[in-house]
């Protein structure tokens, strides 16, 4: 009989081997799924993982990678800080939407003024919007001990309703001939998040993501606040003994993750998306949860995981258009990744043993 046994110290090997193992298992199980759908599994896997980087349209798709990876990384790093501390912000999607709405509102309010201060102020407003949205579950948790998982998740649906209201009402393009959606930022240079280097898909959001990753890494490994975040997650009573104020930590972590999600929303709405629309959000806030865990809640790992996840997005779209694979199949594929990751993760802290005899 197989038995799980706790390791005396976490396995360093499995800590790093888990994500590749999960990716391979996902490919195998996904391949079986695609085969069952009547597709050639090798072709699908190649289309998703190989073609975007080395295939026929790689010159365009490579740029798309950073475009998709940027917001994922930015959001996932914020979430990871909270997850490390045992604070479960599941509502980044809502904070992302609110960041976009706040930032866009500032820009649209001053349309068509041209000033180089407009975009920076919008960035601040975007971060603020996400922060405010995250403060609701944070304060409810610290004051009334509510569950931040539920509250932050529910607020996603509130944010979506506000988004719908914004694109059909208060942010609707007055020159849009009645169609829902705001003015397009691509035709408003002062508020536009333009590509800095188009072949790589680099815009300010990508810059922010990479800089944030480095800062978060330094915070976690070198700074006392990072130590307190890790301590609170691993041993809450030891954290109080150390002198951590749990309420302050909740506000700090929720605030950072909300602000980063808000930033991601702002960079998206002023760049790749271009405008506030009813279906502006595409699930980055939820996918970032997978990215955070796939990256081992480590900022540098999250950068790699962000690109991998972006690959499944870009490659998934390719598979959809070229091979007629339904979008839902791609989502199942992405979900499998988290599933296998969590399953294989057991090996970091446990090992299998053949049980001999009774105990």
């Amino acid at each position, binding site marked *: 009989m197989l038995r799980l046994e706790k390791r*005396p110290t976490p396995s360093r090997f499995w800590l790093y081997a888990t994500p590749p193992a999960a990716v391979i298992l996902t490919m195998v199980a996904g391949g079986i799924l695609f085969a069952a759908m009547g597709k050639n599994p090798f072709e699908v896997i190649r289309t998703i993982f190989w073609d975007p980087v080395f295939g026929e349209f790689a010159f365009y798709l490579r740029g798309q990678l950073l475009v998709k990876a940027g917001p994922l990384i930015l959001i996932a790093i914020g979430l990871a800080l909270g997850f490390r501390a045992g604070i479960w912000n599941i509502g980044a999607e809502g904070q992302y939407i609110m960041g976009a709405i706040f930032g866009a509102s500032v820009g649209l309010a001053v349309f068509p003024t041209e000033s180089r201060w407009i975009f920076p102020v919008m960035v601040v407003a975007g971060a603020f919007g996400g922060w405010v949205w995250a403060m609701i579950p944070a304060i409810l948790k610290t004051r009334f001990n509510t569950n931040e998982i539920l509250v932050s998740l529910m607020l996603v649906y509130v944010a979506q309703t506000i988004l719908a209201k914004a694109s059909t009402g208060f942010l609707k393009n007055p020159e849009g001939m009645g169609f829902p959606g705001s003015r397009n930022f691509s035709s408003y240079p002062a508020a536009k998040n333009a590509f800095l280097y188009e072949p790589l898909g680099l815009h300010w959001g990508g810059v922010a993501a990479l800089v944030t990753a480095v800062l978060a890494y330094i915070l976690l490994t070198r700074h006392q606040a990072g130590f307190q975040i890790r*301590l609170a997650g691993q*041993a809450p009573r*030891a954290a109080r003994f150390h*002198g951590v104020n749990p309420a302050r930590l909740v506000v700090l972590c929720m605030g950072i993750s909300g602000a980063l999600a808000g930033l991601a929303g702002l960079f998206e709405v002023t760049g790749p998306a271009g405008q506030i629309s009813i279906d502006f959000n595409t699930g980055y806030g939820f996918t970032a949860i997978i990215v955070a865990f796939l990256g081992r809640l480590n900022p540098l790992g999250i950068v790699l995981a962000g690109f991998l996840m972006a690959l499944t997005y870009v490659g998934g779209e390719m598979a959809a258009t070229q091979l007629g694979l339904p979008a839902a199949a791609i989502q199942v594929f992405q979900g499998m990744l988290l599933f296998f990751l969590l399953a294989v993760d057991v090996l970091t802290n446990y090992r299998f*043993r053949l049980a001999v*005899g*009774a*105990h």
Partner: protein
Amino acid sequence: MTRPELLRVEGITKAYPGVVANSDVSFSIGEGEIHALLGENGAGKSTMVKMIYGLVRPDSGTMTLRGAAYTPSKPAEARRLGVAMVFQHFSLFEALNVAENVALGMENPPPMRELAARIRAVSEEYGLPLDPSRMVGDLSAGERQRVEIIRCLLQDPKLLIMDEPTSVLTPQEVEILFRTLRQLSSEGTAILYISHKLEEIRSLCDEATILRRGKVVATCTPRERTAREMAELMVGQALKTPERRMGAKGEVALGVSDLSVESPIPFGTSLKGVSFTVARGEVLGIAGVAGNGQDELLLALSGELKAAPDKVRVAGQPVGDRGPVERRKAGLVAAPEDRYGHAAAPDMSLVENAFLTAGVRKGLTQNGFVDWAGTRRFAEEIIAAYDVRTPGPDVAARALSGGNLQKFLMGRELMQGAQVIVINQPTWGVDAAAAASIRQSILDRAGEGAAVVVISQDLDELLEVSDSFAVLNEGRLTRPRPTEGLTMDEIGLMMGGAHGMEVAHHVA
């Protein structure tokens, strides 16, 4: 005196992955004999008795009970053959009464009324006052133990195994228990008594088998040996008694006045008007049965629980409303009892755990950034000074044995040069040699002028290290008295005497 042999254990070996718990253990117990199984933590006592009670099966070796092969495959079988056991941790339901709890442990419980009558009869017969209709939740630890003992006695056992039975008892309750055990012995019931408390064994047991690292290292007749001789057999080396350096007492370093705090722990004990002072160079020992507010007192002193500013003063400075960081700055360090998860983060390295409390006083941060190189040096200093057995400072705290981790954590607090040191259970679960060295360090720090508060459930330890002595009982602290000249009787009365004695008069 030779007795007919009841149980013989021969060549028993039991190995777990990575550790041999018992290796070639042999001993025998006569009918009606009180036999001590003596050894430090991890010497293999518990594994041995679990095999006798049918919870664990030996890898090799034989056991015979009254001449017949004895291989119990489960506790029910052991009980059927007349072997009963009282565990260190009770398995009782607080929301049920005594009789119902006893019934739950029986295979064919008689009707409640009859059972209650039998419980009453047994409790009177053996001088274990217990009312069968009382809720277990309302009973003291000593009374709960009686429930377990009576549950065993109802099966009319030939061999009663008792695992560390006195750790939760007041001295008076220990006396009652011993009287019962002696009576059982005189009626022919053998008792296998597991303990590391030597004086108890000397006063109670007929024979002793001493285990060290899973092996039998000696057998002896406890009455003919001194406690020290047995301790040295148990530890395998000569023991040093901690030396006290009598320094003149200095000015008051820690003052606590009328401190009352609600317990944050479910079913915890709130502190009620606790007052005491400790001077520089003084060690105050605080005794009490577990669960009488010890954890809460530590939280209130460490700063994890806050009160009005003037309730706690360090060197005259009010810190009652301050958190742990400010209190450390003011010169107070604390060491909680629970090593895994409170005093230390089990999954973090020793370096990180060193930073956990020493960051403030050792100046290990600059502009919020942690000086990990300096922290590592401090961790290495602790490891060297306190003889912590570890491959290095980077291993996770939980990879260390309990005793080694405790040495590290004691070193962490004692090496910070604080003038007030509060420690809850300094040597809990630590082997005798390490315990002696921890006590010595505590006395050394006091000799250097620190005011020390030691909270402990080990009376011998408190009598050894403390200058003054007080008892926590239901969240109230008795007035501290000089330790010198205190008798066990007086201490017992301070601890609330024998809980439930009034019931005894009732029944009788």
